[in-house]
């Protein structure tokens, strides 16, 4: 049981990382990378891989010392109650904004490509209904849900990526042309955006509750290869379709790329609809995972079980900010803001990982 459990649950760790890799398309990672393609994005990606892997490795092995415990359970016995509350109150905002940017970004995409005449608040409404249903589930159940969503969707996304790679209109020369700019000094923005692909490990702060066995080396190897492949696809496939000079003109490079794929024998000829349907569910589960972490961190600020009223207040806080976000951020502003958010996030991640690793070492020795 132990061995089987270990192997089984390490799969969960992979899912969390994979989820972030998928969702980077919504959160403007390709857009940022393509924008800086001549100004250091290639080198940025190359640098981001070791940074992302190092952070993943350090953080998850440190977390691994507390099997089946999330951060709220780990610090529960701690003495500095007030400090904990302050800490949780601050960092939950990182997860909340991560989910929020994804949500606003995707609602913008939906209102552009799928429901152009529907008010964005309507789309937000149905998304919030789904998200609130999911984030209140126990952590274990959210993982089940994530697993099912990935299981349903991975064939779909593999088909689309496969179709993109074998497309005769994919210009490898354009991809190589961008590759020739590898020796340009890396830009911080590109590094920050590229590391987002790896930052799914941060969700372990809560989801460590499910990680029973030791994380094995193949987990990290898999993440390394998936990350490389993901960054390559995210960054360079749109360039192969829309050109090294032209790709940056698109607001959502990947959505436009999926619109460039024609499925000759499928009943749905335009791959963009398969792609959007895939992202409808991926966005739902990704925002849910991020907000579940935020939700659990806020819950960790209170002692014991929280009352129905407090639960309502937390959800109300999520709702109000989401509604404001959808009203005030158009996609251009959101895009610009996300660039700075990415840099900020990278900084916070490094601080959290460094702090946690040091703290965990002191506690265990």
């Amino acid at each position, binding site marked *: 049981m132990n061995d089987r459990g270990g192997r089984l649950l390490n799969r969960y760790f992979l899912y969390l990382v994979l989820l972030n890799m998928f969702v980077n398309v919504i959160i403007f990672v390709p857009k940022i990378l393509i924008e800086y393609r001549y100004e250091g994005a290639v080198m940025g990606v190359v640098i981001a891989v070791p940074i992302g892997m190092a952070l993943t490795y350090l953080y998850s092995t440190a977390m691994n010392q507390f099997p089946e415990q999330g951060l709220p359970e780990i610090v529960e016995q701690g003495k500095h109650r007030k400090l904990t509350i302050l800490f949780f109150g601050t960092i939950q905002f990182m997860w909340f904004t991560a989910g929020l940017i994804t949500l606003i970004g995707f609602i913008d995409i939906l209102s*552009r*490509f799928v*429901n*152009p*005449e*529907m*008010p964005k*608040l*309507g789309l937000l*409404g*149905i998304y919030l209904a789904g998200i609130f249903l999911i984030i209140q589930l126990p952590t274990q159940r959210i993982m089940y849900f994530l697993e099912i969503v990935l299981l349903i969707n991975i064939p779909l996304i593999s088909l689309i990526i496969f179709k993109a790679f074998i497309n*005769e*209109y994919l*210009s490898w*020369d*354009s*991809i*190589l*042309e961008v*590759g*020739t700019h*590898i*020796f340009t000094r890396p830009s911080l923005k590109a590094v920050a955006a590229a590391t987002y692909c790896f930052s799914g490990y941060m969700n372990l702060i809560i989801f460590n509750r499910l990680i029973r066995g030791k994380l094995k080396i193949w987990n990290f190897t898999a993440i390394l290869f998936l990350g490389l492949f993901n960054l390559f696809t995210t960054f360079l496939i749109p360039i192969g*379709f*829309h*050109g*090294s*000079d*032209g790709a940056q*003109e698109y607001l959502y490079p990947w959505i*436009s790329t999926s*619109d*460039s*794929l*024609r499925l*000759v024998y499928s009943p749905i*000829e*335009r791959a963009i609809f398969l792609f959007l349907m895939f992202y409808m569910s991926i966005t739902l589960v990704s925002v849910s995972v991020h907000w579940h972490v935020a939700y659990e961190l806020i819950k960790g600020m209170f002692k014991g079980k929280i009352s129905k009223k407090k639960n309502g207040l937390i959800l109300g806080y999520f709702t109000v900010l989401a509604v404001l976000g959808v009203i005030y951020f158009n996609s251009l502003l959101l895009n610009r803001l996300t660039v700075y958010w990415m840099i900020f996030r990278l900084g916070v991640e490094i601080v959290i990982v460094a702090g946690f690793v040091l703290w965990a070492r002191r506690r265990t020795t």
Partner: protein
Amino acid sequence: MRLTSKWKLSFNIFLTFMLLSGCGFKDIDKRFFVVSIGVDLAKNSSKKYLVSLKFAVPKTTRESPAEYQIVSEEANSISEAVRIIKTKVDKEIDFSHTKVILLGEELVKRRGNAGVNYWFVRRRDVQSIAWIAVGKPSALAVLKVKPTSEYFPSNALFLALGKDGSETPYVISEFMYDFKFRAIERGIDPVLPIIKAKKDFLEINTVGLFNKSKMLLELQPEETKMLNFFLNREEKSSLWGKKGQTNMIVNTEKVKSKYKIYTPKGKRPYIQFDVSVDGVLEETTKRIANKQLSKYEKVIGKQFSKEALRVLRKIQKAGLDPVGFGLRYRSRHFNDNDWKEWQRIYPTIDFKVHTKVQISDTGLIE
């Protein structure tokens, strides 16, 4: 009491949903699908363009013939034209099934139509995988042609350009996104097929070559076939060769072309083309013994190389680059001014073509 308030809340939420949503609900029979768009220059008018939309009229039974309606309008921009056309039709205009965009011959020969090209890309409901082509003598004339085999409007165009139907090397079809890619990317130029309107059929066997803003050169059918081989788009084709008194025709099954740009120090730079052709002997005027086959292969290869060289030089002379030599050069050089270098090199570059023909079969007889 508690229960009623809970119900009230849910009811209110439901009501809000009803108010917020439901917009955009428009039944499929209230939409008028545009299957193809034609843009021409306006004649005898102060306006700039003549925009024609070809609408498909849905068939109510399976037996009824394919019907369509073409509405044209002169305006200074496409969006203006569409707005005026909206007032002329009874249903909502829906561009989501627009699969062919035709640009009039006159229009593409004039400089500076970026606004037209970009309108299609910017609109979310026009597919990126719509085909784009040049209409000759005008886009409207092509739209008006109704081949008898058509069972819904513009289907003949879809089949010809989509290669679901006939597969021929004389058609180089082009998607809108790829056209835009070529129109922007430095080092590769757009190519559009030219569709000629005949009485009740359409003829597609030539292409027009563009620089970044207008059509400069029109290739002949045989040259189009050559360009197709350079682009590696279509492999099923036929080659023709002559040795002494014997004419022969080879049906190709596989045509692969590769090229490499050489810039030796102090010498003239050249592009080495390697083409390999795999085919079946289809027709000869005389019996050819299997032993002599290799001789004939060489003859066809030589003839092919000669023809290829002529087409490449013709394109080079026009200063165009549909194959993407410039892009290849850029992608193999790490310096930042590679594009400037290439612009200097290209007009003087030399071509070398080597063709390897292999006839794998002579059909059922020798």
